[in-house]
């Protein structure tokens, strides 16, 4: 699961960079940048979920 999060993080970043290159209107740029940020947050959440300590390890 953490590897899925590891892929989502750069995917969000690529969307943000693409928004800079492809659009010149601030509104469009912001929309895609926020979408990219949401994907990054999703990636972070996935990694956090995937790295939660297992019960066997902590008991």
């Amino acid at each position, binding site marked *: 699961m953490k590897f899925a999060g590891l892929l989502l993080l750069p995917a969000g*970043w690529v969307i943000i960079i693409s928004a*800079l290159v492809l659009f010149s209107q601030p509104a469009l*740029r912001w929309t895609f940048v926020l979408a990219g940020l949401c994907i990054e947050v999703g*990636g972070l959440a996935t*990694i*956090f979920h995937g790295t*939660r300590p297992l019960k066997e390890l*902590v008991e």
Partner: protein
Amino acid sequence: MISGTPPLGADASTFPICGILIALVPLTPAGLALMNCGFGRARSAAHSMLSSLSVMAIAAIVYCLLGFSLQGFAGGPARVFLLGGKPWDWIACQALGMRGLVFNGAPATQGMLLQVFTVGIAALIPVSTGAGRWRQRSIWISTALLAGWSYPLFAHWAWGGGWLAQLGTNFNLGHGFLDAGGAGTVHVMGGLSALAIAWTLGPRRGKYLSEEGSAAIPGHNVVYVLFGCAVIIPGWIALNSAGAILFAGAESWQIPLIAVNTMLSSSASCLVAVIGTRIRFGKPDASLCANGWMAGLISSSAVCCFVTPLVAILIGLVAGMLVGISVEVLEVFLTVDDSGGAISVHTVAGIWGLLALGILPRISNVGGLIHPGAQNNSGQLLAQVVGIATLLGLMLPMIYGLNLLLNRIDPQRVDLRGERLGMDLEELGGGAYPEFVIHNDE
């Protein structure tokens, strides 16, 4: 290979003052080392201090031999590619071992010297998070990766005339990504490395018991922690001042403003932590107050030469609140064992500082960099957001991936016996306090 943007900031007139400031910067890693030691357990105290010292040494050597050639400086040789008709300066190509650097008083030499220390500061941050379970050999290798690759790469983009610094000229985003004192380049980088280490190592034994949830493992010496907070102040003011002059175009006459902003931000943040913990727990919590103090310092790093003292207080107030919440969320809800709160302090406060630069009003006479009436806050905010997104979306997976790989080759975590025995006895063969038995479990 083409040259990047012309150098900002320092010239021959600022050389002596920058030299004095940089000479004070080592107080920052000294304070951090004390804090790392105090937040850890007594049975790993000597290991923590030795790790901090060796991290500084390895970071300095690797950065000078390899890192600086990848980072370079604004106006130096760099690799550039074209995308969407715009130049993207992504990495410097200086000769290895600083052979391309002429020590003739040029600002580039001072920028390099400052970063010999800042790269060590970034590498010290994960040492706190991995306290009590991170093998020394792994600390060294992880530090070498940070100092030789991850840090120089982002530092080139932000401070070395790279694509983040050029967002203003290429995409009309304010003045490009601004980070005067290293909130992003040093602290968020270090904080994200700490997060990667926490994920890689897992929590300390006994931290998350299935029935009790998160168990508190208090630091062994809060005096070290608070003394570290005091030691760090002159170093931080010097770091912010030198960084602002060398990387953000500030003038030497702005040093008093930078010092006041740094002090006010940390004071406000610490007071919020004092009041917040008093309301929450009935008495102020010294460790969280120290975290509050640090959060104010870190958030001030991004904005130190760009805002008025009143805005610096506001930034500190918010930083103190954010870190208080973040420490608890990370430990209790996200089950990340971060003994000194380094991830919250450095990452969250650093990101807040970078964002605040795009949100809050800036002064209009910083070395001619920002002009009255020409402030493009929306564009500047977008530039800051792109910088933060790069740290989270590109640098974090890179650092985490490298540490996972390293962990696969050579496990980074000490074995169960070593963790119970303590890192001092396990790796150094002797304790930090041999005359005393401090805890029942020792």
